[in-house]
């Protein structure tokens, strides 16, 4: 038991104060404890966790591939090589040189489609989460801080939003607006804000009664400053965790919508559409066109999930203390 405490000396210092019952800092040093600041502990945990490190390296690789798709991809993802239709991956006897992972039914390179598709997935994930975060943050702050009519209006809107299945709302919107990359980002943003608003509001409500907020009020600090400086900054941890959890959700939702044919247009190479095209030729045994895009998506989402889990453990002290 004691050795565990030694390895995890964060309990010694909570907010720079030594609580009653624990050792004072000199005493702790004398007893062989070493004080390590929280940031360094997090960094240390990051560097020693092989899984997290591996996931970050892989994610970085994915991001680089996505950013430099033009140089990384061996082919133009939309170029149809009709004489090379349904070429199997390169390790098969019938495999051909530039098509490492085979081609689809129109002779388009699967690998290039995956690389360009990752760019779309990441872009949709990041942009729409940022947008819905902005909407959710603003409305959540207003609801938690202003209370009264605004709060009930916003929270009813949250109720409505959450009482509709997300995929249905997104599909209806996509049908109305028509397919399109930016339309999709926009639709995913306006269907995803409710979770953020709810989290921010409950954080704000629990913080707003604290003494330092009252003190700020008493000092005559304006509501906007209080919201941004005191309420927002202090609820940043759960928001960060929520973002990390939401990005994979949105990426999968994008792939689902594109798979169903109501996502990005046909001319945009995306993972979901690639899987849909591969699905059409699946029953004749041409497995590569649907399996590889899905595998890439799974790895991408898996990496983000590993990092999200780690981030939650590192940032939320309650689960860190458990370890």
């Amino acid at each position, binding site marked *: 038991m004691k050795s565990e405490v030694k390895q995890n000396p964060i309990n010694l210092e909570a907010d720079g104060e030594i609580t009653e019952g624990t050792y004072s800092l000199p005493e702790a040093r004398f007893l062989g404890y070493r004080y390590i600041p929280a940031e360094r502990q997090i960094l240390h945990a990051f560097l020693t966790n092989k899984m997290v490190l591996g996931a970050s390296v892989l994610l970085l690789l994915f991001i680089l591939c996505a950013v430099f798709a033009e140089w990384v991809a061996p082919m133009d993802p939309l170029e149809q090589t009709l004489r090379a239709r349904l070429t199997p991956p390169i390790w098969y006897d019938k495999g051909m040189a530039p098509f490492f992972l085979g081609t689809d039914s129109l002779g388009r390179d699967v690998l290039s489609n995956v690389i360009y598709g990752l760019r779309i997935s990441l872009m949709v994930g990041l942009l729409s989460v940022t947008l819905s975060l902005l909407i959710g943050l603003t409305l959540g702050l207003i609801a938690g801080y202003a209370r009264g009519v605004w709060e009930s209006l916003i929270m*009813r809107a949250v109720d409505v939003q959450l*009482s509709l299945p997300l995929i249905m709302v997104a599909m209806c919107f996509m049908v109305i607006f028509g397919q399109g990359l930016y339309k999709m980002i926009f639709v995913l943003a306006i269907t995803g804000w409710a979770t953020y608003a709810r989290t921010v509001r409950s954080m704000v409500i629990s913080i707003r009664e604290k003494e330092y907020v009252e003190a700020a009020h008493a000092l005559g600090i304006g509501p906007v400053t209080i919201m941004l400086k005191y309420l927002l900054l202090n609820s940043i941890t759960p928001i960060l965790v929520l973002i990390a959890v939401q990005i994979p959700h949105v990426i999968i939702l994008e792939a689902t919508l594109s798979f169903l044919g109501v996502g990005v247009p046909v001319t945009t190479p995306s993972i979901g559409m690639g899987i849909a095209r591969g699905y059409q030729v699946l029953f004749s045994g041409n497995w590569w066109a649907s399996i590889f895009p899905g595998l890439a998506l799974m790895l991408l989402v898996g990496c983000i999930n590993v990092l999200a889990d780690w981030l939650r453990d590192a940032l939320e002290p309650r689960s860190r203390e458990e370890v």
Partner: protein
Amino acid sequence: MGLYFLRRLYQALIVLFVVTLIVFIILHVSGDPVELLMPPDATSEDLQDMRRTLGLDKPLVVQYGVFLLNAVQGNMGISYHHGQPALKLVLERLPASLELVVASMLISLILAIPLGILAATNRGKLLDRLCLMGSLVGISSPPFWIGIVFILVFAVLLQWLPSSGRGSWMHLILPATSLSLYRLALFLRLIRAGMLDVMAQDYIRTARSKGVREKMVVYKHALKNTLIPFVTIAGIHMGSLLAGAIVTEKIFAWPGMGRLFLKSIVVMDFPVIIAWALVVAVIFLVINLAVDLIYVYLDPRIRNEK
């Protein structure tokens, strides 16, 4: 208790009202179904006639009023495409969808709860790490892709199970399992985290120190308290699965209402789309309401408040 229920019911009705309004407005500004319905050589008089018979020439507010009045009586219009009452079409396909959702939910729960408990009680050991690894794969794979992998392995390569349609229980296995994996992984994590959280509480230490056997501590004291908040989450997932089953129904050609919805979206069959949305929303709200009540009943702190 009664007052609480009434308040929740009132909230649910407001939500439902807003949902109908939004769905109605959105769908009616989205396009003209008449041109899709009529043959391409139809004259503009024909189109006008068709609009009149469908009631599409009246102002939106009137259309909505008529729609709402009818909806309350269970009449959501006639499908433009099938020529049958929209609600009937949706409800006909509801049992198939429910079968899929309930089966997949059962698979998730039956596997997730014991595995979650085992992972929590064997924390850090091989079993726990396997469970965590497996659940990571589960929450990271898109359900529709899992369905495709299942078809490839079990239907195309091994030819053990049918890949499409509904009939015997054999048809149910692939769609239900592929739909259940994501929730299985998610529930496993939730149960594990919940158990670990509860096991660190003082009352567990008390139970142990007064000599309660470890099995009793785990299954009676810890599990019970883990499951109470879990009921809410499982209920919400049950509701959203109805909508989430769309992709699975498409891949496995499962004749449920999700597939009907997909087809209706292509031909802009408004009444069916609205009927589907309302049926899903009502079921979702009813489940949430029921879950709230169960939660109140299960937690004595809330139950005995008044």
